[in-house]
């Protein structure tokens, strides 16, 4: 990959790919029933024509262009075309509500916008008075836009065709474009990613071209990705994960990127494509496992017994075989039989058969969930990073995998633990700063140039891998002095299929308490099989049998916490089940389902007081936004349950 070193911007990488892998497939998109495919040569031609078209519409160096929509080839090409002209793409979440969109577009002084369909166009038009600088909007899906005012609105295909004709007619335009591409250097701003911070407004992380390319080249080498690999792009465009794994790594290693037909057919499309590289946040793996377990419960007795028998074999030998450790012949034979009968078909139905490398990140993954997927032969590894580092900081190398660490520090990354326990780093992919926000940039950096991650963790002496405990500012202490890491406890609770979300409190309190969200699919399925009648989510959440079941889960969690020396003190003494699901539209969780802890603590203050006040139930009424935007009030009486905790020798408690 030495050639990549010379190409210091993504457009130059594209030109290199078109030269080296002209007729290899670069992009696929399932449309009109079949998979359309574009080779690297075709993608370069399309991107050049698109760039020519955009420049004729007035896009020049330094401008910013918003990109809003789900994973579509033309939207990926919008990145390339903009970067060719030296403009800076600003991807935004497709499901962002209008004023979130307006804030990002206004803040990043956007002059252009490349969007997916009529829905996004309408959103932009509804806030256009707040976007004076917005000159042109281009769209991919023409459906329903026929009779819109096309003075400042164009179909991307028209822009591309216009560009192609212009390039054909006057070759000077072509040379001007080449000069523009040549003019791009590593230090240019390559992209601005707005992070949906769990606290306060989202900030625009600016990443340099050479930073992105160097970071991507390291990981492509680390995992030996090449042009034969395939990946499915199904995560939001605006998330650093998608931009790194699907856009940057694709251009660096020239592997082929497949875009699904629509968001709800993504899993079926994944099965058709059979990607070799797969990334998913823990929540997706959780949902996959829950769906597997629920479907298996409805299977015939014979199949169920066979399934669980071989899962036991996998639990014993699976990971060792994957790590290449020694396994007795009998174990190996049984596992091979299991591969034919259970694991192979299971991976086939989930679309994971051809996955060579799978990563998970974004939040800590439950150990049992992690080892389940590894035991059936999926090479699942953890990585840790954040938008400000263009994703990768640490990653688990093949063979050395532990469920509770996030991997060894990547080469070329300098990572240290501050005395407050916070992880700090210097890395090639390090961000240039927050867009138009010098104050926040300074605040995020240490005087000697390290970037503060805001996460607390430590280097595990045994494995040399980094272990993340929690958000730095969330780690607290109980009044008795015991360490209290809410995230750590919540992950253990969330591993149970019946618990979808958990929020744990305990900082500066005598004991830890928890507020739980049931998983409607899992508990609903349990209710159906035990013919428990319920009318609504709220009624099921308050059902005594459900409380009984979740109480047992909390007790089991307490038992496992008791085994860990640092966490033993923070066992949960009382918990309740929330009457409604924590929802992004109510601002209780971020777009990627991370809990906004302080917001939730504020909103459910009466319940927390009841938890610590010893009451056995409490009333709560919260303002709720329904799907179609209407606001309403939802009130309920929530019961509180006490739970047994494992006694911990007093000495242990002080030690942490």
């Amino acid at each position, binding site marked *: 990959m030495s050639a990549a070193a010379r190409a210091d911007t993504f457009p130059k990488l594209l030109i290199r790919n078109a030269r080296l892998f002209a007729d290899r497939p670069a992009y696929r998109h399932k449309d009109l*029933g079949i998979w359309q495919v574009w080779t690297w040569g075709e993608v370069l031609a399309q991107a050049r024509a698109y760039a020519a078209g955009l420049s004729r519409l007035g896009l020049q160096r330094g401008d910013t262009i918003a990109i809003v929509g789900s994973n579509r080839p033309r939207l990926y090409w919008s990145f390339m075309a903009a970067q060719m002209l030296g403009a800076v793409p600003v991807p935004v979440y497709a499901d962002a509500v209008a004023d979130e969109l307006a804030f990002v577009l206004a803040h990043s002084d956007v002059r252009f916008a490349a969007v997916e369909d009529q829905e996004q166009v309408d959103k932009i038009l509804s806030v256009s008075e707040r976007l004076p600088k917005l000159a042109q909007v281009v769209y991919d899906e023409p459906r329903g836009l026929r009779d819109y005012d096309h003075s400042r609105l164009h179909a991307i295909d028209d822009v591309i065709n216009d560009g192609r004709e212009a390039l054909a007619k006057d070759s000077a335009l072509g040379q001007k474009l080449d000069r523009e591409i040549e003019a791009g250097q590593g230090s240019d701003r390559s992209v601005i990613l707005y992070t949906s911070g769990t606290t306060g407004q989202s900030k625009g992380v600016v990443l340099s071209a050479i930073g992105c390319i160097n970071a991507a080249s390291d990981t492509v080498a680390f995992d030996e990705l090449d042009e034969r690999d395939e990946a499915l792009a199904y995560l939001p465009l605006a998330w650093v994960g998608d931009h790194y794994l699907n856009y940057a790594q694709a251009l660096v290693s020239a592997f082929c990127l497949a875009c699904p037909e629509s968001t*709800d057919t993504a899993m079926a499309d994944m099965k058709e494509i059979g990607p070799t590289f797969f990334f998913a946040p823990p929540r997706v793996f959780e949902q996959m496992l829950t769906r597997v377990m629920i479907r298996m419960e409805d299977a015939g007795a014979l199949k169920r017994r066979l399934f669980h028998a071989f899962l036991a074999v996998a639990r014993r030998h699976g990971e060792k075989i994957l790590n290449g450790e020694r396994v007795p012949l009998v174990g190996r034979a049984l596992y091979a039989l299991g591969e034919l009968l259970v694991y192979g078909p299971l991976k086939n139905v989930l679309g994971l058969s051809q996955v060579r490398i799978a990563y998970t990140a974004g939040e800590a993954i439950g150990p049992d969930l992690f080892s389940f997927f590894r035991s059936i032969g999926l090479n699942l590894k953890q990585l840790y990073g954040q938008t400000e580092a263009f994703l990768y900081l640490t990653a688990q190398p093949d063979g050395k995998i532990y469920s509770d660490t996030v991997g060894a520090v990547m080469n070329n990354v300098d990572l240290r633990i501050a005395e407050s326990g916070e992880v700090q780093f210097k890395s090639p992919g390090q961000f240039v700063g927050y867009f138009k926000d010098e104050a926040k940039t300074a605040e995020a950096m240490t005087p000697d140039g390290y970037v503060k991650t805001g996460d607390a963790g430590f280097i595990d002496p045994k494995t040399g891998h980094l272990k993340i405990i929690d958000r730095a500012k969330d780690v607290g202490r109980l009044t008795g002095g015991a360490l209290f890491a809410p995230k750590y406890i919540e992950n253990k609770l969330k591993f149970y299929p019946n618990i979808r979300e958990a929020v744990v409190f305990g900082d500066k309190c005598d004991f830890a308490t928890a507020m739980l969200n049931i998983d409607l699919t899992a508990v609903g399925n349990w209710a159906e099989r035990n013919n428990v009648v319920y009318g609504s989510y709220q009624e099921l959440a308050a059902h005594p049998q459900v409380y009984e079941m979740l109480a047992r889960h909390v007790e089991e969690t307490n038992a496992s916490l008791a085994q860990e020396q640092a966490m033993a003190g923070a066992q949960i003494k009382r918990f309740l089940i929330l009457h409604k699901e924590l929802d992004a539209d109510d601002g209780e969780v971020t777009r990627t389902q991370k809990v906004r802890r302080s917001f939730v603590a504020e909103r459910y203050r009466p319940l927390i007081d009841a938890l610590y006040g010893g009451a056995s139930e409490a009333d709560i009424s919260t303002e709720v936004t329904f799907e179609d935007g209407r606001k309403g009030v939802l009130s309920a009486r929530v019961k509180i349950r006490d739970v047994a905790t494992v006694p911990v020798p007093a000495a242990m408690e002080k030690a942490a």
Partner: protein
Amino acid sequence: MRAPHGAEIAAGDVLLAVEDVSLAFGGVKAVTGVSFDIRKGEIRAIIGPNGAGKTSMLNVINGFYQPQRGRITFKGKARAQMRPYEAALGGIARTFQNVALFKGMTALDNIMAGRTLKMRRGFFWQLIRVGPALTEEREHRHRVEQIIDFLKIQHIRKIPVGKLPYGLQKRVELGRALAMEPDLLLLDEPMAGMNLEEKEDMSRFILDVNDHYGTTIALIEHDMGVVMDLSDRVLVLDHGVKIADGTPAEVQADQAVIDAYLGVSH
């Protein structure tokens, strides 16, 4: 006998004229002396209480029943005896009140069946299914996929229609009619038995069809709200007789129509 394509009829001109048509089954007089016209590009609603002869009128236009009296001119050509497939050849497509789909076939095959008229390759080519036969199958499949995309039924492409919920079956039937690229589309209560959300979807599809493909639509519908929103002109039948014809507003104010619906005896 390829009927002249509707091209030479400009939008707004009369596409179909029904002159003094009467139809009776033995003693039962379904339709008596009805005359009205449908102009190219408009959405023409036909309303009236149950048993007013709406569906019978549609069946006359579509060639199922031969009227005892009266004449029908379509695209400027008066036609005598007309079998349904001749109507189809001429560019008339229709859907049925209680869905007439081919239960044994998948949704995709049902819509592909709508392309039968447009496909040319003879028996021999289909036999060996190479070269021209394949390119034809490919082209028509592409056209059908655009319709599937248009009606947002990608996810039920390969499911036998017998297994689909009612709302989706209606959409597949609309898709099959569209596959015939008709000049005149007869919709027999496309929203019967649908909930509010499905009705909104279907209304949007009907508007999109009229707008996107420019298809003239004759629509039988009971839901006044829908009729008022969608149609350009409304024909009101009662006991087989025309009692009103005009814009939705005019018809709504017409006393005869109100009586018919409120059941004032004749």
